[in-house]
């Protein structure tokens, strides 16, 4: 209870979050606040702990006691379904072991609202249909998930999360496996969710240009620690990136939207 009064008005907060799969810590002493309605990108080199951080915030990996808070309450104090209607975590799209249809996957987002033996009702179908319209996958509703393209899969995963009706959506590298057309499609959907429906978004991202183009705030991780955070312009600086990524870079700016393009130097 004492901790709860200390915590700020942030929607999600981590306090001294440390995590290890084995002995080597993947994340150490992470203290971050995420406000409602933010569009945040988590960036950093491979193995810097981006995905792990998202999983801890989403309650998918168990954190050490009392370190991750949602609305001032520690995650472990929530019932699993209670948390699921607030926070959705969206993995990178991949093949399923079984031939689920797209509509099946989207309806799975309704799970936290259903009691054990009940079936999805008309409301659930309506919500799923709306979600699929938003991400433009309604036409694939009856197709097998495994047979659609990577970009379509990612949009289906997002539709499933939308039908979960969460406040916060965590996306683990939503664009990494996609070509540029689908990258922009997916990010525009997320941008609209953020702007029109005030969803809080936290994305783990590889592509620094897309991160600067869409995210309002960036968190840069290095070896499991927060190296720095701020607006894209504050974080994507030559000296910072050269330190973190251990490569020489040039930074160009897009004149139209001010987004930054980070180009590694070949030697």
């Amino acid at each position: 209870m004492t901790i709860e009064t200390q915590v700020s008005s942030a929607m999600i907060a981590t306090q001294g979050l440390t995590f290890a799969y084995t002995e080597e810590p993947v994340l150490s002493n992470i203290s971050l606040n995420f406000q409602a309605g933010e569009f945040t990108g988590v960036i950093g080199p491979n193995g810097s702990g981006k995905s792990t951080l998202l999983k801890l915030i989403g309650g998918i990996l168990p954190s050490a006691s009392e370190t991750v808070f949602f609305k001032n309450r520690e995650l472990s104090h929530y019932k699993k379904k209670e948390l699921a209607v607030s926070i959705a975590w969206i993995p990178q799209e991949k093949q399923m072991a079984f031939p689920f249809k797209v509509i099946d996957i989207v309806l799975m987002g309704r799970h936290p609202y259903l009691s054990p033996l009940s079936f999805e009702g008309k409301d659930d179908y309506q919500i799923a249909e709306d979600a699929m319209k938003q991400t433009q996958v309604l036409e694939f509703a009856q197709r097998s998930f495994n047979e659609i393209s990577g970009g379509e899969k990612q949009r289906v995963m997002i539709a499933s999360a939308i039908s979960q009706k969460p406040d916060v959506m965590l996306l683990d590298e939503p664009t990494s496996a996609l070509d540029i057309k689908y990258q922009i499609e997916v990010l525009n959907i997320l941008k609209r969710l953020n702007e029109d429906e005030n969803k809080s978004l936290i994305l783990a991202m590889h592509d620094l240009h897309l991160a600067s183009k869409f995210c309002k705030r960036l968190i840069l991780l290095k070896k499991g620690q927060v190296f720095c955070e701020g607006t894209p312009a504050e974080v994507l600086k030559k000296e910072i990136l050269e330190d973190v990524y251990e490569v020489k870079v040039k930074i160009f700016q897009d004149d139209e939207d001010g987004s930054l393009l980070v180009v590694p130097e070949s030697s």
Partner: protein
Amino acid sequence: MSELNPTITSSRKFATGIGLFFLIFLATLIIAPLIGPTTIDLGKALSGGIGSTGNVDADILFLARIPRILLGAVTGAALSVTGAVFQALLRNDLAAPFTLGVSSGASLGAVIAISLGLNFTILGISTLSIAAFLGALGTMYLVFGLVKTRYGDFPTSILLLAGVTANFFFASMVMFIHYMSDFTQSFQIVRWLMGGLDITDYQTVWSICPFVIVGIGGLIYVSRDMNLISAGVQSAMSRGVDVVRTQKIGFILASLITGTVVAISGPIGFVGLIVPHMVRLIVGPDLRLLIPCSMFFGASFLILCDTVGRTLIAPAEIPVGVITAMLGGPFFVWLLKRQNKRGNV
């Protein structure tokens, strides 16, 4: 208008699927008793007088064929449902009680019970069943722990290797116990290991029914949770599934029903592999539909295999386990090849 037809609600889709497979089951149940090496006169058989009244037709129908068919139904249903559940929880369609070594674990449990002279019943429950259940559960625990990676995946290669290893190990343990046991026990073990549905009576069938019904009922209760797990463990967690609890319930109940039927029918392989797969092709991977449909189709499938077994080279009989293995072996190879093509191995 959209392609989602909101007038076709889930529940109606489910009722249709389950109804279809129930009808198949019912038809098998009615026709199978009429088929056999001896042609029976149905009118005479139904005219009454069972056992030592000289009504041979009635004796064959009611004392030989029907109990055997009922045992086949319960065994087939149990193994098929178990297969569907293992496949979902391990996210791999090559998982089944036989391929994972769970059936042989149950066998080992039962053989140990026989060798210790523990072949009796407590409160109507045979100690063989309890030992087989513990054997099945122990194996499941072992294989699950061995195969699971840090990311919660179950790679096919390791899964199969673990199953093969478990099968070899338990088979040699069974052989060892068999070798060390005295003549009476040795005879009991051989009879039991040969398996099959032929030596049975109504009493045996009724004694295993409650476990199988409770087990399948419990699995249906957690079927939507298991659906989400079959689509991805971490996504399931994010959608509010208590994954650890669901896995525990699933494995314990699946082991319970496997152990129960293996204790009576002996090891009958591949039913749990073939049936869920065929049913999935028709009704899809949703366990709320797949479990009840596999239950009915599994029952029909094993009755059918046994009917073939007892008529093909009549008056001699082929044990039902031989028939299922002859169908299941090639089927398994086909599945493996298909997975390999998709790059899942």
